[in-house]
């Protein structure tokens, strides 16, 4: 890469961020050196091997920021603006081990906090993401979107044991696990602990409160107090939940078929919304607010001049990160290519970073390397962070 193109890349990136500033997003530049804890806690242990970690003299684990979403969120929470609507944009290097690409690379992006008009905010993010592709002369990128909240609303409405619901939602971002779950739940015979089967059977159907007391008493008699963060009550609750789990030992075929039908819905957002309404009607379940928000958002996207017919929506599209709670999107040159821009809604993240009240949040990151055609090969996800 010659210094000329490097300067060109830099200039265009600066122009992009300048346009974000004009759109009302304050430029922010959080420290490169960050505490490692939030990244490990929010992105999972798997990110550790891709991070550059170090330790300070007091033994605290630090890292070179692997993305900017968490640093920007932390700075926002530490500011007097915390809790109020605020938007930030950034351009900076992030550090991540990648197979055949440099570990230090540039990202530009936006994080928007505290806006309660979620559908409009979601649509604005996608539109601002498209500005990045325009800036770099990528005409009509493929737009892929999903909505994690539709799946959680759907699962919540199903008649399933709580443990199964938790598992389906957790595995939404892991396609092979999700498939495996469905297989296992359909086949599952006694899922629980064989040696307690008798006790569980005896307790099944008895007064839940009394059963709970019995189990906690038994644990106390055995001299077992709280061990390692899980209380005796929690253990008893889940132990009893297993008796419920074991009562109908398998997922009814119809329920599985319904889940699979849900996950196969894809197409442009308007058609898909129609199909989802039909499915909800057929199965007599309510997708209510989640589906309403989805349709309102599509309206806002159209209002922003996005060609809604060209958007590729899929119910099973997630971005592989557990902190997304709603809208997710990726812009790419073509199917199978690495994303140029990627982001989504992460309403739960700020609470987990210490906010007292839930704060809605949505954002995205653009890979400057990919946009300028200098992206290395290897990593498919441009973003280990939340947006």
């Amino acid at each position, binding site marked *: 890469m010659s210094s000329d193109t490097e300067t060109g890349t830099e200039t265009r990136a600066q122009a992009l961020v300048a346009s974000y500033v004009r759109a009302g997003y304050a430029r922010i530049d959080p420290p490169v050196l960050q505490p490692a804890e939030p990244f490990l806690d929010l992105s999972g242990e798997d990110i550790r091997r891709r991070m550059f970690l170090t330790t300070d003299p007091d033994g605290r684990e630090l890292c070179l920021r692997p993305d900017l979403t968490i640093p920007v969120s932390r700075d926002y929470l530490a500011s007097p603006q915390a809790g109020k609507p605020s938007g930030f944009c950034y351009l900076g290097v992030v550090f991540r081990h990648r197979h055949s690409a440099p570990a230090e690379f540039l990202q530009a992006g936006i994080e928007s906090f505290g806006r309660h008009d979620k559908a409009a905010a979601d649509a604005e993010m996608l539109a601002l993401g498209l500005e990045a592709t325009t800036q770099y002369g990528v005409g009509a990128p493929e737009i892929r979107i999903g909505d994690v909240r539709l799946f959680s609303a759907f699962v919540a409405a199903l008649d399933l044991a709580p*443990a199964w619901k938790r598992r389906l939602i*957790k595995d939404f971002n892991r396609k092979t696990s999700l498939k495996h779950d469905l297989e296992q739940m359909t086949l599952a015979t006694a899922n629980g602990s064989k040696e*307690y089967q008798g006790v569980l059977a005896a307790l099944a159907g008895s007064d839940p409160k009394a059963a709970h007391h019995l189990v906690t008493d038994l644990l106390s008699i*055995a001299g*077992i107090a709280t061990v390692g963060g*899980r209380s005796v009550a929690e*253990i008893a609750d*889940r132990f009893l939940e297993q008796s419920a789990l074991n009562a109908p030992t398998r997922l009814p075929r119809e329920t599985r078929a319904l889940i699979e039908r849900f996950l196969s819905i894809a197409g442009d957002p308007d058609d898909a919304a129609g199909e989802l309404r039909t499915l909800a009607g057929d199965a007599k379940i309510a997708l209510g607010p989640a589906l309403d928000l989805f349709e309102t958002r599509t309206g806002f996207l159209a209002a922003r001049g996005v060609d809604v017919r060209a958007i590729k929506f899929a119910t099973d599209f997630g971005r592989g990160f557990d902190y997304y709670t709603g809208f997710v999107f990726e812009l790419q040159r073509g199917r199978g290519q690495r994303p140029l821009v990627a982001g989504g809604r992460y309403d739960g993240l700020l609470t987990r970073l210490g906010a007292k009240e839930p704060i809605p949040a949505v954002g995205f990151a653009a890979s400057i390397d990919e946009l300028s055609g200098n992206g290395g090969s290897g990593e498919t996800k441009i973003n280990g962070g939340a947006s």
Partner: protein
Amino acid sequence: MTAPLILAVPSKGRLQDNAENFFARAGLSLVKPRGARDYRGTIAGVDGIEIAYLSAAEITSQLAQGAAHLGVTGEDLVREMIPQSDERVVLITGLGFGFANVVIAVPQAWIDVRNMADLDDVATAFRLKHERKMRLATKYANLTRDFFAAHGVVDYRIVESSGATEGAPAAGTAEMIVDITTTGATLAANGLKVIEDGVILRSQANLVAARAAAWTKEQRETTRLLLDRIAAQKRAEAFSEVRTRFAGMNDGLLVAAREKFGVTSPFGGPTSSGMLTLHCPPGNVHALANFLREHGADAISVAALDYVYARDNPLYAKLAAELDKRA
């Protein structure tokens, strides 16, 4: 003088004793010409080998870098310390000592957790309830991550532990642990239990070769000789020698003995006078002796074997194939 083959051997404790005994059984006696405190040694009567006495962890990293050709270390350390270990080292053979399992242990009080599926669910429920992830104390962060990823468990955090890992749940610094255990007694004493499908690795000491070492022709030849002796000793360990001579000993009887007792006849079938040498798994020798007497044998001798050499050298063949594959 050409560069010697470097064999790294544990420098202290039971592991060192076991390793030295292992090599001694193969007729390779490790000596420290400059005294017991020396960290360099040789093998008596074998040229071209230098013994490096190191800790098991050092041996593992030296093998990963190719600074030693061969080394004795635990498979647990190899899998934990060397990313993509199969591309960096070759596990030539298990040595029959240093057995330990790397396991996942949770508090015994968790009566609702029997297996990984339970653990997965509990981890997610814990995160939802407490707004933080369950902590897992371990020295085996890489093994843990791979195993948990394979089981789809994501809601946990690793807390690096350098001391007594099994005490972490009681001390309140972690909810669960991954650690090595041989009998499980230490875990039980700390109120922990191993979950059913929670054995991450069944480990033992291994003879390990470094792919990245400079393998000269001479070093390969020295390795071939070493492995030939080790293979001969291993073969000898698997059999006792049974000798007999009686007229009724014929090919038909030999086939029957082969099927019943798993014997081999390394020097061919019975001679015309019925003279025969058999190699028999040690556990079957008495039954074999009865069988032979029932068919007419008057005298049978059984002896332990020191070495059994064969034309092939399976350990070296395996290593050579692996080294050539990368070359």
